[in-house]
């Protein structure tokens, strides 16, 4: 597997400018001859599809949801970063770049991150012009807030629904292109496989989820904007349908998978309330701007929060990290919360949370101000838990939330399979080992609107359009493979439901490849996963048939892929024998429990190559160089 990152030469602030000039262009009159398939309709998919439609390409978008507007980008709450420096607090493109590389704990590619910071400016302009109703000040200008560990106010937001508003902007731009005839959107259609002809991506196999029909679509390029794989843990903040299938099928067909073990655990989620829990709900991290996190200082103190006097409360983040306190980065905040719960300081009926307390903020600002800032979040919390956070502190606990790992891509966002591109959370490129708050929306939109529609032109300009008919043997072979797998799942006729298997897989992953990991645990996880997978194919029960709307069958296919993928995650976590960002190996911590990074041996991207199900995948390395952000140890003390 060849890993050519294609990083442009010259000073970093000229990379993107030079690259745009050096890329080949497709003649405007020829653009309509090219077909592009986009899988997924979130920010990174819908934005790319709408923009390519505007440019004149023929675009077809496939989504498993019933409408493009449902994509999981919609659930992002807090905001989107951009280096606008509207607050005059010293922000700049370079500072956003610097913060992102450092926040990612030096495991991302400088050049890509710089471009991200650069186009962040355009994202805000674009969104406002589309009518995204960002929060404004009384003077009519855009408001900003500081978010998730940043020391400047560069986050734009729309109440607690920033992702929703940005996605609807994208969705509307997409529907406009549908009206114009440049883009077709196919909902309730799931991608099942990638079609390769002579090693080049030429299309995908799809399944119409309503009729069960399996069919191929071919094109001159395929874009996977299929999001992340946090649902490998079963319980996560992701929507129930989020899955790894598209990325996994691409991997099986030869695309390298980068840093799969880099998964972010979000510190502010509502703790589970019982065994039946189906997903976890995230409370925006913006709450940490005004809430203070604490646990009873004495382990096993089960008094009601109001009965615990100030002197017996441990505001542990403020104690450990005086300068960042409650705004310490996500990985650190999550780990410390786990430590508190593990040592018996957990709160709530199940002793599985820590308090996030607004008492002081309400005293300082008044209830009205707090309601204005977080009203919808407080209401959501009360609906779910039955507790009123204006009166009793919220209970929070970390939950899997975002996956920094993903398909390896070069500077053009092309995977190791020519013609196959990956955007947004589905690729690995910009966040390194840890993503900063309000940067996921930024990356999705940067890739979708401003990067991919240009870089894909450089690929298309080199290929002859429309050379693969859907009757091609490669399509028929791939379709047959998909059909066989579906039939096999239906034929098992076992005794255990898909969800039961998924929960078991999730538990292995959460216990052994979750917030902290060690070699023994990972090794045992690898064998447990293999065992569970064997059992799955012997004992899973999927009812109904493949020729109709069958939600169990959809799930069964996705869980089968998670079962294969989970193993690669563990191999990645095992071979990365250091701690960095969200990846904490207990063998590599200092006396205070802080992560110890090993730049000498691990300043690279791990890229995995498929060698067969159950076989150990092959590891390739993309070395990382840090020319502009000097390697340093993160310290939030």
């Amino acid at each position, binding site marked *: 597997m060849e890993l050519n990152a294609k990083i442009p030469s010259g000073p970093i602030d000229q990379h993107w400018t030079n690259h745009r000039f050096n890329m080949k262009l497709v003649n405007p009159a020829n653009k309509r001859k090219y077909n592009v398939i986009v899988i997924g309709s979130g920010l990174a998919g819908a934005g790319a599809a709408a923009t390519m439609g505007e440019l004149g390409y023929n675009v077809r978008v496939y989504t498993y949801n019933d409408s493009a507007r449902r994509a999981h980008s919609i659930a992002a709450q807090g905001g989107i970063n951009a280096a606008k420096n509207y607050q005059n607090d010293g922000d700049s493109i370079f500072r956003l770049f610097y913060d992102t590389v450092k926040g990612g704990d030096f495991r991302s590619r400088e050049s890509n991150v710089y471009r991200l910071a650069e186009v962040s400016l355009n994202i805000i302009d674009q969104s406002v012009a589309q009518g995204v109703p960002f929060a404004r000040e009384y003077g009519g200008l855009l408001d900003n807030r500081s978010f998730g560990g940043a020391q400047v106010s560069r986050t734009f937001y729309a109440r607690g629904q920033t992702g929703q508003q940005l996605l609807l902007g994208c969705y509307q731009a997409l529907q406009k292109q549908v009206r114009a005839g440049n883009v077709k959107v196919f909902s309730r259609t799931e991608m099942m496989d990638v079609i390769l002809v002579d090693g080049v991506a030429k299309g995908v196999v799809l399944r119409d989820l*309503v009729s069960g029909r399996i069919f191929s679509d071919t094109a001159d390029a395929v874009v996977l904007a299929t999001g992340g794989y946090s649902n490998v843990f079963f319980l996560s903040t992701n929507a129930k349908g989020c899955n790894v299938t598209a990325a996994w099928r691409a991997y099986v067909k030869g695309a390298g998978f980068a840093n799969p073990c880099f998964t972010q655990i979000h510190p502010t989620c509502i703790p589970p309330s019982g065994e039946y829990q189906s997903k976890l709900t995230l409370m925006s991290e913006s709450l940490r701007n005004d809430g203070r996190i604490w646990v009873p200082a004495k382990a096993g103190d089960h008094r009601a929060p109001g009965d615990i006097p100030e002197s017996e409360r441990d505001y542990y983040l403020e104690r450990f990290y005086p300068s960042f306190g409650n705004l310490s980065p996500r990985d650190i905040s999550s780990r410390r919360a786990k430590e508190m719960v593990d040592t018996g300081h957990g709160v709530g009926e199940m002793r599985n949370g820590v308090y996030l307390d607004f008492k002081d903020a309400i005293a300082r600002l008044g209830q009205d101000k707090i309601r204005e800032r977080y009203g919808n979040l407080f209401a959501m919390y009360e609906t779910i838990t039955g507790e009123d956070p204006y009166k009793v502190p919220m209970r929070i606990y970390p939950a899997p939330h975002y996956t920094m790992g993903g398909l390896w891509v070069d500077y053009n966002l092309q995977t190791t399979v020519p013609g196959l591109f990956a955007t947004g959370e589905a690729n690995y490129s910009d966040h390194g080992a840890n993503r900063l708050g309000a940067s996921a929306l930024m990356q999705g939109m940067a890739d979708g609107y401003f990067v991919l529609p240009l870089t894909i032109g450089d690929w298309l300009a080199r290929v002859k359009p429309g050379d693969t008919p859907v009757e091609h043997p490669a399509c028929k072979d791939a379709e047959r493979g998909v059909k066989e797998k579906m039939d096999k799942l239906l034929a098992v006729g076992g005794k255990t439901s898909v969800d039961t298997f998924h929960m078991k897989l999730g538990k292995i992953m959460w216990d052994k490849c979750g917030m902290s990991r060690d070699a023994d645990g990972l090794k045992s996880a690898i064998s447990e996963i293999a065992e569970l997978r064997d059992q799955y194919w012997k004992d899973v029960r999927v009812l109904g048939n493949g020729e109709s*709307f069958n939600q169990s069958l959809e799930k069964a296919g996705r869980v089968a892929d998670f079962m294969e993928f989970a193993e690669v995650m563990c191999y990645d976590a095992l071979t990365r024998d250091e701690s960095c960002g969200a990846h904490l190996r207990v063998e590599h911590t200092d006396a205070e429990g802080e992560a110890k990074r090993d730049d000498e041996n691990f300043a690279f991207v791990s890229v995995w190559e498929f060698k067969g199900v159950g076989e150990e995948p092959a590891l390739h390395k993309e070395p990382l160089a840090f020319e502009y952000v000097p390697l340093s140890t993160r310290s939030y003390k």
Partner: protein
Amino acid sequence: MDLTLHVWRQNGPRDKGRFETLPVKDISEHMSFLEMLDLVNERLIMEGKEPIAFDHDCREGICGTCGLMINGVPHGPLTLTTACQIHMRHLKGASEVWVEPWKATAFPVIRDLVVDRSAMDRIIEAGGYISVRTGSPQDANAIPIKKIDADMAMDAAICIGCGACVAACPNASAMLFMAAKVGHLGFLPQGQPERYDRVLNMVQVHDDEGFGNCTNHGACQNACPKGISVDFIARLNRDLIKATLSYKPYEITAV
């Protein structure tokens, strides 16, 4: 808690459909309504019966995918709440629970509780956007917008497109859904150039899709999980009347 579930089962758009009665025992009041359905489905699968099909995705009340009539009320007994956020404690000990899909001509049933809401996408397609080419806009702060206008736009923009307004309306009208988009874009300076074309085109498609008209019942506002006000319908009607009576698509409006 124990309850009796009466749930709508329908194999496809052409099947007549029927209620199936299922006793449901031992469920926790802390479960969400959809987790209760998950549990019922797990039990059905163990009995060798096909599970109940229902739409859901984020389970956080923001994606708009879920939509059920719970005891005759869209999204169930709590105001400002989607079905996925209803917890069993909110049913306050009701022992009989009736679950049905959205019912509207424009929303054909796909299976059981799942309906096809693509007609709403086609309404947006007709004009629910501001035309702006990627990369072409000016600086975001070049046009200041009064906070009150931005806030009003946001009050409309929070629509999640779930279709509860249609399900609640005796005429199965999607006026509140459409008015939310017309209101959102109409409150902003960027939305002005296409304002009247937008309303004409969207209303045309709305009617063609088989949604009924608004006769001011206001049931939509009560059912809306995001609390969107019927005032936006009045605003839509004002724009529509103006567009119908006096607006000509190619009229020069600048003076």
